């Protein structure tokens, strides 16, 4: 016995280490996404998010002010200024004026410009261009610098995702439409499935087992099969594309899992309890509302979380049953795709939109997560 007791701390250590590992596996990409959502597209493609916290040495291509800003000082035409924006902090270690040699000069040295004149660049980015003749052209010269830059973050991505383009077309509207889709699409299936689950678990009628088998069988039918026939049906009976249609579709597609999950949970409730109630003269409806529903709360809650997350993240069903060519309705997932643009690849928008759209599911999950495991296990493990 002492042997077994002796292995326990080691076992616990292994369990804890693997928990830490799993948490790290999940959290690291999320943190990366969060950090990326505060960076610009150029920064994201330039360096990894893990480097964004520290000052980094970068090769930059900057440009002096245009010749139109030149002033005459004595015999010389002079352009002065700083290469960096006002709020940028950077220290230049080498610089150059040709793509051939981007690190030809040290700060403070003077370079001859190809089109005449000279340029001197200091470590803090200030420069002075001098020329005996007038500077010509309409653009400044390129200056290549090797500089150490302090980390920089921006809120622009959030601004773009939340408040982009014409205000009424922004995320706000999509947010409320998504809620309009999601809330009824979560409540209706629970209502229907709870009744069905009770009947399948506790009411005796012929063909009950077959009915249960049919519901379980429906779990494996992919919903894509039903898209076109169901949409045709909706159009024929006059529902068309709209909120009602998408609620019904979500209800239908969510029903097999809901019934299965709730029936298994309810079937596990103690038989004595229900028989006692019957003996005491309770009607089936009373048993259902007074006993079964309160006792099934963990299962109801865990299914609600599932259904809510699935309808919140859904794009396919919304595109087929809700979004029509009039552009009156949209959902957040669709809005995010639109923000990504025709060819995708806007990582900064993707990262930001991901964080905006997980806000609500996170709240729902943390509010109800204590029921999740209980509800799931209670249905499957007896």
């Amino acid at each position, binding site marked *: 016995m002492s042997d077994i007791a002796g292995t326990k701390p080691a076992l616990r250590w292994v369990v804890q280490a693997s928990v830490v590992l799993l948490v790290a596996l999940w959290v690291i990409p999320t943190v990366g996404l969060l950090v990326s959502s505060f960076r610009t597209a150029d920064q994201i493609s330039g360096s990894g998010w893990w480097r964004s916290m520290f000052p980094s040495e970068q090769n930059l291509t900057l440009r002096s002010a245009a010749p139109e800003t030149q002033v005459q000082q004595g015999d010389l035409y002079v352009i002065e200024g700083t290469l960096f924006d006002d709020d940028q902090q950077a220290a230049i270690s080498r610089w150059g004026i040709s793509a051939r040699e981007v690190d030809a000069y040290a700060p403070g040295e003077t370079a001859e410009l190809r089109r005449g004149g000279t340029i001197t660049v200091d470590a803090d980015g200030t420069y002075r261009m001098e020329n005996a003749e007038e500077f010509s052209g309409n653009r400044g010269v390129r200056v290549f610098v090797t500089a150490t830059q302090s980390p920089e973050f921006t809120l622009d991505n959030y601004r773009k995702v939340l408040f982009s383009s014409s205000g009424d077309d922004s995320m706000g509207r999509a947010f409320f439409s998504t809620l309009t889709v999601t809330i009824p699409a979560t409540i209706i299936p629970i209502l229907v499935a709870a009744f069905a689950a009770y009947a399948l678990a506790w009411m005796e009628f012929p063909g009950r087992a077959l009915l249960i088998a049919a519901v379980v069988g429906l779990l494996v039918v992919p919903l894509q099969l039903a898209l076109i026939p169901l949409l045709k049906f909706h159009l024929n009976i006059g529902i068309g594309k709209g909120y009602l249609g998408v609620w019904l579709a979500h209800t239908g597609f969510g029903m097999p899992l809901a019934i299965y999950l709730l029936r298994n949970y309810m079937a596990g409730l103690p038989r004595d309890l229900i028989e006692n109630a019957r003996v005491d003269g309770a009607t089936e409806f009373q048993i259902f509302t007074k006993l079964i529903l309160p006792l099934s709360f963990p299962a109801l809650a865990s299914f609600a979380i599932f259904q809510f997350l699935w309808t919140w993240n859904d794009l396919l069903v919304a595109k087929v049953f809700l979004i029509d060519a009039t552009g009156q309705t949209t959902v957040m997932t669709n809005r995010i795709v639109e923000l990504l*643009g025709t060819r995708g690849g806007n990582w900064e928008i993707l990262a930001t939109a991901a964080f905006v759209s997980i806000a609500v599911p996170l709240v729902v999950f943390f509010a109800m997560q204590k029921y999740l495991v209980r509800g799931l296990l209670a249905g499957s493990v007896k």
Partner: protein
Amino acid sequence: MKHSLYAGAAAIALMAGSVQAQGELLHAVGDGSFDWDGFQAFADAHDLSGESLTIFGPWLAGEGQSFENLVAYFDEATGADSSYVGSDSLEQQILIDAAAGSAPNLTVFPQPGLAANMAKNGYLTPLAEGSADWIKDNFAAGQSWVDLGTFENAEGNRDFYGFFFNVNVKSLVWYIPENFEDFGYEVPQTMEDFKALMEQMVADGETPLCVGLASGGATGWPATDWVEDLMLRTQPPEVYDQWVSNEMKFDDPRVIEVIEEYGSFTRNDDYVVGDADDTAAIDFRDSPKGLFDSPPACMMHRQASFIPAYFPEGTELGVDADFFYFPAYAEKDLGTPVLGAGTLFTVTNPNPAAEAFMEFLQTPFAHEIMMSQDGFLTPHLGANPENYANDTQRGQGEILTNATTFRFDGSDLMPGAVGAGTFWTGMVDYSSGAKDAATVAGEIQSSWDAAK
């Protein structure tokens, strides 16, 4: 309490839903060098008050907004109530909507192949009589556009269904003029010069090309563009047509030769950034960024006219970055072939407003308004090139209107299993050095045989 909250949320959502994204009239009527007379004539001829029009297309974000701005002028002229919705999964969604009978009035297809399928299933309505003749007379290389928009219907009759609007040119090489200046390079006029320039760059210790083929599930398509462009530069256009229709087999020696020609540019460690075997791992959206590195990672990038969308923020086209025509061989005497692609308008649910909109697209005005915004090119000969937003776009427009031969992106015309399947994957195999050109061509041909 909870219920009133839900009801409140629903009410807000419904109210918010009634406000609609709208385009705006960018220029007041009569302003600028647009064809306002044509606009006025169109407005006088059409009164569609109370009619509504729905348009479904592939453009999102900025491009979608540009198009909505055009739709706003249509509404202004006719009094119709039009709306545009963009989707990135148009290919799937339009099939569902058409099959279920809830198709929008007009659908803009990103490639002709899909529209041809829709026509075969009877979901498209032919365009008005005379549209084909109009295109032939008013578009540069008009006959090519008519052929591309003509499909077989369910009964096997050929009709004209698709009106090309918003074209892009693929035969472009992007570069940074100031880098060329620093090194003393000249823009090459012929393919011979282009190859000599690449040699020169290698001798100077620079890398000539940035190549990136990765594009998620569509990885490999940039390589198919290369092959198509080189096909037009080494073989007469008739051979290109035979290749696209599989009259000439994919494993024909001429095709293999072209694939190897592509390899001579990109299967050479000296010519491309990084390892030549790794081009398929570089995202096509990231690949042009090497031009802007300090020091430059590469000197040139061959890609279609849309690629500036992926240049670093604040890049000013024409000054910070520019393009030249991917040149043709002087010795082959094949003129100036241009490879391109484009979107086509089709009628999926006819009504008077849809007909009127198709007429509206024939006016130079519609093209001019689009030209004045980013990223739109047109082969319409009547549209005034002065209206292009910038010199870069104007230059691309001229390439299009001056083309002696225009050919559509071949992979879009091939059967989906080939053009959006084995051709892509085959080019990835070839580009990564896994298989040689003859093996790849043979495999693509057998997949084509299987698709028939």
